[in-house]
């Protein structure tokens, strides 16, 4: 074997070993790398009890209720299967609206309501002009998809 081939082999083996080690580490830490917990998992009771955690989902249509004379707001968040009521007092990000993706940071109270300290808005990877979005919203397929999404069952196990 030529010295150059030996060096190639050494570099290749080192990289392969490293890739395997990283893959294993990532598998082990899979759950800790999640930025937020799905609603279904929260409903199923899979969340840390002793500390604040993050949930992520979509704000359910027509679920937003504002308390009069205060900044308190109540709404439900869904992962298209399960729903969770959320309450929050404070300033909301500009993108917060019904149907929008949100991340809430807080914990569950005794009545299974998620009391959020902070609300972050998520947006998707689609960019389009307002007119295009309007046109798409009118499109029948979009509505059918929304309807299908609503019928998925919440089966917390």
């Amino acid at each position: 074997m030529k010295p150059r081939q030996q060096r190639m082999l050494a570099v290749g083996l080192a990289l392969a070993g490293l890739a395997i080690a990283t893959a294993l580490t990532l598998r082990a830490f899979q759950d800790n790398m999640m930025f937020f917990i799905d609603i279904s998992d929260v409903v199923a009771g899979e969340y840390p009890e002793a500390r604040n955690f993050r949930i992520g989902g979509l704000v359910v249509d027509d679920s937003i209720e504002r308390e009069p004379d205060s900044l308190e707001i109540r709404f439900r968040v869904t992962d298209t299967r399960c729903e969770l009521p959320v309450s929050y007092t404070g300033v909301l990000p500009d993108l917060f609206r019904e149907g929008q993706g949100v991340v809430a940071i807080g914990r569950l109270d005794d009545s299974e309501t998620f009391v959020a300290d902070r609300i972050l808005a998520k947006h998707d990877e689609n960019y389009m002009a307002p007119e295009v979005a309007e046109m798409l919203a009118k499109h029948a397929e979009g509505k059918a998809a929304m309807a299908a999404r609503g019928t998925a069952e919440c089966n917390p196990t």
Partner: protein
Amino acid sequence: MWTWFHKLASPPHFYRLAKALSPWFLVPGLALIAYGTFTGLFIAPPDYQQGDAYRIIYVHVPSAYLSQMAYTVMAIAGGIGLIWRMKLSHAVAAAVAPLGAWFTFLSLATGSIWGRPMWGTWWEWGDPRMMSQLILLFLYLGYMALRASIDDTAKADKASAVLALVGVINLVIVRYSVEWWSSLHQGQTILAEGGPAIDAEMLYPLLANILGFALVFGSLLLRRVRTEVLYRERRTRWVREMILSPQGQT
């Protein structure tokens, strides 16, 4: 083919060639950026969700792409240098690191400024996309620190190339962080499944800026490598002769 390659990689030849090539990258690059930035800011329609705030995409995405591209160049050049002992490739790796660090910083800063009005936060510790991109910045800084800490150039080249290759793992993590884990950051737009998830009027200035940034990056890199070659070859005869010749090239 190999003679052509060896000629290109010979320091005096590269030194002349880089100077001649650099403006051919810089001028079209700046022109594309001028077009992309103007169109992106003033002609492209606002976004249906984010309004005008989405226009930050025209600097955020090109800098994020370049932060990855620079690292790829650095790792490949380091690998070639390790295996084939090519002098020029180590010079490329040394020259690209600070550029990569600057573009990574820029992607983090513009992302943060974009996140404040849209997501409602400047920064979230624990978000996989943000953390892996921050690690990329630290990799660049660690790489430069490692180079600076070893006086012997040949040793510094080898050690830093190993570090660069190890860090390639992080490139993969940055790329797939938004798919493997839940993240505040949205998924791929241009490389989305089923074609770019962005209107054509918004896409063209973005592509222009991505290509423009890449060309400007190429021009800066050519000139930085040229300087690095000059420094590394400072005791050689061709450098002495070039400096003493009456029509001396700078």
